[in-house]
């Protein structure tokens, strides 16, 4: 079930095209990362979904609604650089956000307390926002985005500006929110995506280069490397290894033999078989999977 479907989305500015006809859909209940380097068009896409920008062409369809309908009531949005009315206190702003999203006053007040607790700004609830640190503002930003319990949460680089502790807190929070709503968040940090996301949209120069579940993408781009460590004289096993079926190549690096393999299972079986038969003095076996980083570079370079 997809909660949102985007087809042929195009955004042209006067002098450049930021988004070049992208198609994707967001599965309900999933956490999806919109990954791309600076200038890829992440913010542009999120702003279009949030109704802040108008696309030049293409459709955004929310499940059960007409194409390009006003879907703001189902959406929570955190801008990349949120700017608050800094003369308000955090509580006032959360109440205000709740009330303009049509929550009854009492419920808005209750949600404000509740969310402040969840994002960790409870003690600062009655402080002026002008006195907040960057990390506190980011937490307040997340709280205001979910005050009306949206079905789809859009976060533009929610952790990029945070220190390691703040980053951890927010990722943990996302992990929890994931159970209640669909989340689409943009980032250029692959680790963040890898940690909490189920699916990936890889964006580069306004085009989606890859999309799919984390596992499927890993499989597709996987060229894992098997690393073998011998007690002594690894050179003598090189030739033998090369002759094994399922192994195309291997090389020696710092006394460790590295074997790139497309089919891990097959290669492993062969190696273990031969090693047992010939009683090789293996002291280390390691499977090095290509990281998302490599995947990212690979997809972008295509």
């Amino acid at each position, binding site marked *: 079930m997809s909660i949102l479907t985007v087809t042929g989305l195009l955004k042209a500015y006067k002098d450049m095209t930021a988004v070049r006809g992208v198609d994707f859909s967001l599965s309900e209940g999933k956490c999806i990362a919109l990954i791309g380097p600076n200038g890829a068009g992440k913010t542009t896409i999120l702003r279009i979904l949030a*109704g*802040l*920008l108008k696309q030049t062409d293409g459709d955004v369809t929310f499940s059960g609604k007409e194409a390009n309908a006003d879907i703001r009531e189902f959406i929570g949005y955190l*801008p990349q650089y*949120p700017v608050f*009315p800094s003369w308000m206190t955090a509580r006032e702003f959360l109440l205000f956000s709740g*009330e303009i999203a049509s929550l009854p006053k009492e419920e808005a007040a209750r949600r404000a307390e509740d969310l402040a607790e969840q994002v960790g700004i409870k003690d600062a609830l009655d402080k002026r926002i002008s006195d907040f640190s960057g990390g506190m503002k980011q937490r307040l930003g997340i709280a*205001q985005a979910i005050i009306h319990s949206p079905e789809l949460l859009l976060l533009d680089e929610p952790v990029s500006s945070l220190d390691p502790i703040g980053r951890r807190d927010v990722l943990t929070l996302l992990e929890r929110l994931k159970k209640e709503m669909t989340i689409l968040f943009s980032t250029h940090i692959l680790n963040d995506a890898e940690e909490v996301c189920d699916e990936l949209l890889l964006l580069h120069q306004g085009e989606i280069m890859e999309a799919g579940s984390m596992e499927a993408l890993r499989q597709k781009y996987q060229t894992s490397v098997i690393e073998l460590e011998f007690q002594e004289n690894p050179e003598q096993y090189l030739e033998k290894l090369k002759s094994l079926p399922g192994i195309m190549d291997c090389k020696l690096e710092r006394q460790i033999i590295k074997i790139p393999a497309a089919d891990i299972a097959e290669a492993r079986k062969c190696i273990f078989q031969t090693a047992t038969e010939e009683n090789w003095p293996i002291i280390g076996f390691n499977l090095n999977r290509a990281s998302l980083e490599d995947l990212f570079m690979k997809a972008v370079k295509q």
Partner: protein
Amino acid sequence: MRQWQTLVKKELIASFRDKKWIWVPLVLILLAVMDPVSNYYLPQILESVGGLPDGAVFEMPEVTATDAIGMSMGQLSSLGVLIFVLISMGTIAGERKSGVAELILVKPISYTTYIMSKWTGLLALVLVSYVISMLFAWYYIGLLYAFIPAGDFIFLLFFYGLWFILVATLSIFYNTVFNSPGLVAFGTIATIIVLSVITSLFGQKLNYSPSNLSNHALNYLQTGKIQGALIGSAVTTIIISALLLVWSIYIFQTKEHAS
């Protein structure tokens, strides 16, 4: 309706914390009272700086209460308008420029509600300041010259007040057109100046122009007769304000809300 209330409340609190609710009425009171009072004391002032040279005859024109309130209105129409433009030039444009609008407009509120709440919040500050300053002027003129009958004064207050509704609406309009507060101020002031220049050039044909509101209202004080021209320019002002407001909402709806 509730969203509108919430937004208006935010506007009022914002201008309250800005101290606008204190300094705007104070400055307007000063403007409104200044000329009638200094005019009254002019002979004494001249006396104290040494009086007139011998032989010079200085005929002080007879200043009536109506003339005096006309002086107050002259100040409000020039410097007063400038202050209203100053406090309103960023109400929407500034919010968009800073990015605050992005957080507000992504919530499910209608753009009409947003504009109407901005208009209401601004109008509250403008009209309250205007009425207070005019009351002060009325009181001091009463003490120094003669009391204008309360009924006549309220009549004047109403018709001349329409002019400030137009000024505020004009500013809201330019707030939706331009993204920079400076341009908003420029557009508003330029429009007001052009309107009054055209009105004085084609005085006869444009008798119903909003720029003539203060003249027609003063004329009523002098003659005690309600003239067609007063009603005419009042109606024109109301219609133009309403059209501007609708136009603003239309422009705002077709605009993108992130830069």
